[in-house]
């Protein structure tokens, strides 16, 4: 067994060397093939979302987090008997008021986007825009972060469905290829 040990480390070393070369190859390929179609996805996935968050919005989000922590602390401390009712009421009212303001401001920031979404939904579903309005009102968009987009997306996908000509499976209205058999289904409408 003792004689096998040096061998064992040679094997490990060799494996590590192969892995090194593999990853280096991966890395070089990704570095050299500059922004080709291969990398488009990666670039969108990584670079897209966060850079849209402005510093103003980041500040608001940080403040929101701090206020939520504050409200939670206040409750816990009143429960634990560390805070008088008067102090609790005073702080709670103040922090809650501020939190509402912050939430409103966050909502105001996404306002323009919501208008866009509303139009989009209206255009796709052919329902009057007013009927769609209640979605953000029930649950302010700021509270759900990026989720404001989802109703729109859902509305788009739910509108019309195309049956695939080869296999008959129903596909989303904007589908180009069939989700079951992969056959092209959208030439006519796209062309």
């Amino acid at each position, binding site marked *: 067994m003792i004689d096998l040990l040096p061998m064992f*480390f040679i094997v490990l070393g060799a494996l590590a060397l192969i892995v090194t070369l593999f990853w280096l190859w*991966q*890395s070089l390929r990704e570095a050299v093939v500059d922004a080709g179609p291969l990398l488009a996805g990666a670039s969108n996935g*990584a670079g897209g979302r966060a850079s849209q968050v402005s510093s103003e919005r980041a*500040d608001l989000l940080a403040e929101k987090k*701090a206020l939520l*922590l504050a409200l*939670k*602390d206040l409750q816990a401390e009143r429960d634990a008997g560390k*805070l008088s009712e008067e102090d609790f009421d005073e702080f709670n009212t103040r922090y809650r008021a501020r939190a509402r303001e912050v939430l409103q401001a966050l909502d105001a920031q996404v306002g323009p986007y919501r208008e866009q979404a509303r139009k989009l939904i209206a255009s796709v579903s052919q329902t009057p825009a007013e009927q769609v309005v209640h979605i953000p009102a029930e649950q302010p968009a700021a509270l759900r972060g990026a989720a404001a987009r989802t109703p729109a997306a859902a509305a788009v996908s739910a509108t019309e469905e195309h049956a695939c000509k080869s296999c008959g499976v129903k596909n989303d209205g904007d589908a180009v290829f069939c989700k079951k058999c992969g056959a092209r289904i959208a030439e006519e409408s796209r062309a």
Partner: protein
Amino acid sequence: MPALDLPFFGSLMLGAMLVVAAYTFSVSVVAGRGRPHLLPAARHGVYATWAVTAVAVFALAYAFQAHDFRIRYVLRYSDRSMPWYYLWASLWGGQDGSLLWWSFLLTTYSAVCARTLKHRLPELAPYIMATLMSILMFFCVLMLFAANPFAVVASGAAPDGEGLNPLLQNYWMMIHPPMLYTGLVGWSVPFAFVIAALITGRLDEEWVRASRRFMLFAWIALAVGNILGMLWSYEELGWGGYWAWDPVENAAFMPLLAGTPFLHSIRLQERRGMFKVWNVFLLCLTFLMTIFGTFLTRSGMIASVHSFAKSSIGIYFVWYLLFMIAVCAGLIVWRLPLLRSKARIDSLLSRDFVFLLNNWILMGMLFFVLIATTFPLISEALRSETVTVGPGYYNKWMIPLGLVLLSLTGIGPLLAWRKSNGAYMARVMLVPGIAATTVMLLHVFVGPHFGFPAHVSSDQIYDTLTGRVLAAIYGSAPVLSTTVCTFVVAGHLQEFWRGTRVRMKNTHESFILALYEVISRAKRRYGGYLVHMGLVAMYFGFTGAAYDTDKEAALHVGESMQVRGFTMRYDGSRMEVDPNKRMIFSDFTVFKNGQRVANISPAKFIYSKPADTATTEVAIRSTLTEDIYAIMNSVNPQTKVGTFRIIVRPFVSWIWLGGLFMIFGTFVCMSPSVREVLGEVREPSPMRSAPALMTTLLLGLFVGGSLWLFGSGLAHGQTDGSSSLHAGSVTLKGPVEKQLFERLLCMCGDCQRLPLSSCSCSWADDMRAKIRDRMARGQSPEKIQADYRDKYGAKAIAIPDDHGLDRALWAVPLGLIGLAAGALVWRGRTWVGKSGHAATAAPGGSLPAADGGATLETYDAALDAELHKLDD
């Protein structure tokens, strides 16, 4: 001898590490400067760096296993007789290899971090990777140009190596250094996050949230690394203690003193958005302290028992440190406008302010240790005279500072965030106050009957007022400590109880379920409390040192000695032989109140290689109340008369128990919520591989530690057949002599920093004889000490005097601590402001309102929903 040219191959791999790291660094920087599509390339570059470092590590491991003595490092730190696991541990047994091991851990962290950052924080990620790679590049340069582990021996291969230091040949060597390095290197990751945040200007709490688990992991690994070092010292070195305030121990301790305040004040940043500059500074400081510690350990500039061989790499560290300080300072100054925030707190009587005080005392302790550790260098530079700062100095000064810290730990959790009301505060302090007073009274009146008097006698380290004050504090430290410890524990238990009771009332859950829910809804708070309890347990263990009883005796077979209520009967000695060594055991039966409680067998091992090296194997019998620590000094093979030293040390086990508590507490802080495990949380911190890995490691550590501590039946010490060189078998007669010898250092040239009270070399023997002779002739200890100093210089005295420049040693840090306290209270008053409307101190003032639709009630409902989900 292998045909492969291993030294060349190894050096080549080191070069490859540098090249790949430099490549990854460049790609990362380019990715950060507007080409995010290069991020995957950078990430794979990081993976490749890790793999190539692994190749180098395996190559060195192979060289050890194959006994390739052409390589200098292998020659120096191994020989043919060593078993494979010590050959593996030799990887980090010496300086050059430990740098490679350091690099390996760093790349491992980098790879885990890169994996975690996949699809996350695309703006920070490139700079995080670049920072980590830049640190690695420094270590690569260091190895290639100054400390190459693959360097060959000029005279060609030797038939056999020099062997690993016998002190290092035990199982602690397998655990302690990797753990400590894991902790030290771990701080690189949060440091990389903060540097990336500074460069990109994204200084909101994004980077804090993303690096939170890395911070906690690095913190606990460092803490556990330190505790394991104490265990090693206690079990193997055989001098009976666990912490000697050696420069290298301080080097590992100081990052902890900088990291702990950071973990506290970062909570303030999250709640208040304030102290951003301070937090960034603290994190940079922690990282710099880890580098500084490495520098202290390896430069050989300060004499230490741990020192690696003196080498030329110190100057590289100096330049790197200066460079990093410049970079950090430059970045912070550049980003000052973004880091500024309106500091506001509602009241000085609040948890917020206690957090600040916690920062204050911990920074004070850091400064104290830093000054004392570097004082030999400062003194050398200012007046060309090296002085030594021995453990006596630290022990006296750190006790009051530690008590302040402990008191703050007790008070903080009892106060409310933001503002505490006097009457309510009195109410929450009632129970802990009563508990503490009860324990204090018990200690004062009942303690002495059980051998735990409230006051102990204490020697004065100075003959001045300061010395008397310190001695007074030290003397009453036991009762102060038990009182404060009780206060902290009672206060924390009350916190758990109050939280649980409210939940039981509101939800009608059972106690256990309610407790679980309460903890899991505020994991960081309650996890932190558990860590505090661990700290208390450790402090309690340290307090036990005041009651140490140390006795030496020469015994015939069948004779007994009495130590602190225990009767130790010497039953005789026996010899066992194995291929490597002869082992001489002395068997003792331990009685208490006439009942047999244990058998222990201290031993001496005599190794055949290196020829006739004798090691002392202590035997320890641990219980929660005390440890019996037995050392065999010598046994006459004919008459079987032996001399033994028995130390009874109360409460030592509590230190290790405290360490376990800390691990468990950190685990609670780090553990993911159920929703995270199920993948139901998309933001802010999804449960990914890295946190999962770290949390699992911690849990494993906790379970393993518990098994070790309790599974071994609390009797350990020499069960592993590992060896240790015992510092000495010195017989001391009386406290006056002990006190004097503790202050005089052995000056033979080989024994670094060992005082005459424990050094066993022949030079020390002669010197003790001379000094005893002078004492017998009626000379005062002060006179003898003064003469000793005149003859050998200030560095021969363990504790610097209390006058002249030496006074600055304590006066400067203490003065600064005082000044900082004053400044904090004064600034705090301005922070509180006129009416304390901290909540409305937002930068924007009034905010634009949203478009219609969402009413106030909607937002209130939404707030409640968010509050319910909030995981703190």
